[in-house]
């Protein structure tokens, strides 16, 4: 499932995928795949993304019940 919340948080901070990738030391492709819901990041990577975007794990990675 696509991670729209992460994409919106990134856009709020006015960061491109590449800029966010550089800041947390991953590739742009990894960020793209996480946002597309095609890659499950490790907890460490999730925490790094949250810290960079100023959000909590719940804000970005909690899946709402349908």
């Amino acid at each position: 499932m696509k991670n729209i919340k992460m994409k919106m948080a990134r856009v709020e901070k006015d960061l491109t995928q590449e800029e966010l990738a550089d800041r947390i030391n991953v590739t742009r492709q990894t960020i793209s795949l996480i946002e597309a819901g095609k890659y499950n990041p490790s907890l460490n990577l999730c925490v790094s993304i949250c810290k960079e975007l100023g959000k909590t794990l719940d804000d970005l990675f909690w899946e709402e019940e349908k």
Partner: protein
Amino acid sequence: MFFNKKNEIKDERVENLYNKIYREVYAVVIILAAVSIIAKYFYYGLNLEHVVFELILLIAVSIYFLVRSVWMGLYSDMVELKDKSRKISLPINVKQIIIALIGGLGISLFFGIRSALIYGGGGNRLNYFLLVFSASFLIYVPFMVLGTFLVHYVSNKKSKEVNEKNIGD
């Protein structure tokens, strides 16, 4: 200066994909070695000197995998996972013993049939087969079953100790 890896960025997804490729390379090497042994057997006959390198490769790689997985505490974890996800309700050590039995049976059958074909003549083939099969069975099956059981028992025990030590650290 040129080989400084201090600033090397490690992306977990890329690392995982690389590891996946290395796993596939390992499988390809093992398969090629096995195919080479079989091909050389048909070409040269049962001559050990032609397949020494392939045998050393297969044995060394297997031993390395076993020792490394025990040393990392991974062996007992793999046993636990396999026991949880097994389709047939038999613990893994019993399955390994059954495989060792079948392996020993296969080797005994191979030697029995081979001896019967090469040395058996004038109606003696059945006798040769039974003699060599029985002798091989008595030698190989206990050796393989005991060996498999011992290796599994020691590996599992050592691996659990390593895991306990890691948790304790």
